[in-house]
């Protein structure tokens, strides 16, 4: 038991995370996506149509009345949240005309399923696009014991791709502005 206590103390005083292991702040994520020239935030109001489709993607209505995003030309960036098993996972996503450009877990609060934060998992999403039925155009291999965390990230990836398409359509159709 004494050894266990010593181990506990040592672990609790463990040093900072390695650079590739640390969570990125939303500001750092946006700076990375837009090379330091972050455009002003815009707001996408969740009208009936958007709410209906986002509900179908997420399996429930996305909370809130609007979603903030940044857009620069064909690239948009979104910071979205979805609950895994018990707690919300915060994810930054950048979309361009080629599909998902960046996806980064900015905050993970669950006890299990933390593997979804690492590039060995998130790299699977790079370049992913949506089919017409709002499914991803590729299989995403899961993490054993982290089914709900994996599911949350897949849903957020689909949602961001859909929202990006809405924003781009609005930009292409001035009459809808």
């Amino acid at each position, binding site marked *: 038991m004494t050894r266990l206590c010593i181990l506990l103390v040592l672990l609790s005083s*463990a040093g900072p995370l390695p650079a590739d*292991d640390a969570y990125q702040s939303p500001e750092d994520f946006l700076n990375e996506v837009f090379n330091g020239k972050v455009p002003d935030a815009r707001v996408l109001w969740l009208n009936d149509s958007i709410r209906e489709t986002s509900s179908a993607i997420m399996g429930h209505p996305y909370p*809130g009345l609007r979603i903030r995003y940044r857009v620069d030309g064909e690239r948009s960036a979104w910071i979205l949240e979805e609950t895994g098993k*018990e707690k919300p996972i915060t994810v930054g996503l950048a979309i361009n005309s080629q599909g998902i450009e960046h996806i980064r877990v900015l905050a993970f609060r669950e006890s299990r399923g*933390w*593997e979804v934060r690492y590039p060995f998992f998130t790299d699977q999403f790079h370049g992913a696009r949506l089919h017409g039925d709002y499914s991803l155009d590729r299989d995403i291999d899961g993490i*054993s014991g982290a089914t709900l965390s994996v599911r949350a990230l897949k849903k957020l990836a689909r949602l961001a791709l859909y929202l990006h398409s809405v924003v781009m359509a609005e930009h292409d159709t001035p009459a809808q502005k």
Partner: protein
Amino acid sequence: MKLKILTASALGAALSLCTLAGQAAAVPDNAELWKIIQQQAQEIEALKRQQQHTDQKAVAADEKAEAAVTAVEETGSTGGNWADRTRVGGYAEVHYNNLDGSGGASDQKEVDLHRFVLFLGHEFTDDIRFYSELEVEHGIASHEDEDPGEVEVEQAYLEFDLNDRHMARAGVVLLPVGILNETHEPTTFYGVERNPVEHDIIPATWWAGGAGLSGQVAPGWSYDVLLHEGLMTSAADGYLPREGRQKTGEAAADDLAATARLRWTGMPGTEIAGTIQYQSDITQGMDPNAGNAILYEAHAQIERGPFGLRALYARWDLDGSGPAAMGADEQAGFYIEPSWKPVSNIGVFARYNQWDNAAGDNTGSENTQWDFGVNYWPHEDVVIKADYQMQDNDNGEEQDGFNLGVGLQF
């Protein structure tokens, strides 16, 4: 005639002069112009003030609208109140077994609410949380002997985040061993019933009171160490691990057990893990002919697109002449389970299981079972299952037939 023309011209000229004289009299002088300019300036100023006021009202209206929207959004988001920090979940599975017994084994034709489980968790702070699992097995549990069920608290622990990578747990916890012991919601595995190797060798579901640490040591690498109540088997029960679970009910704690697991999940769809457990006396000092026990377990799970593979091996080594005399000094088993999803919500599988709870002697006590079946997920949290099982046991007691089941989690 000329006179008339001259007269008319003179009259016209006179009229024109009169008109010009009248117009010259209506032009304001400088003072009047200045007055007009001042009046207009005042009107412009008044209009400006009115516009400014309108703008201010618009800004105020925007701010009010923003505040209202934010309030509505915050009401629906995760906040700090009690309800937001409390989570409820659960799972359930109902089975229909249609098995024919042979060689002395009984038929098993029954419908069973095998498990009904409620999760309840609460977060005290961002770093301290509680998690519990209350289960009713087989539908009904009472003081009547004929009622087959049990009410069990399979998890009830506090978890403390030590930092971003390590956490401590204390209470009743699921032991970190095998594939199903920690993740056993019906939607997560193939087959109506859980596999027999993780039932008779590991033995899942296996929980214990104790304390320990979990965490990540590198990307993809994680560990668990736990000091907890041990098993309490006996010769009368054939030193079977499953019969030795104390379930944290006034559990004898003369001889605690220690469990450690190392797990690698550094590649999507891949898990490789190994667990070792040591207990100084598996009978809690009740049997002088028994001694320590060590469990070794290793497994792999691989998912690649529509293909899946699970494989697990587990083995007990029990010390002492008592277990050795019954062949229970070695108890081991393994299974291998390939699967394939032709479409995203339908999967088929085959599983070969082999296990022996008395492998330490030469008497025939080995069991084997083949399972073939299908899972259909009409929703990601709902599953309908069917499988067929065939047993080939050394003792000749076998149950063959099919099973049907429905399961859900929320």
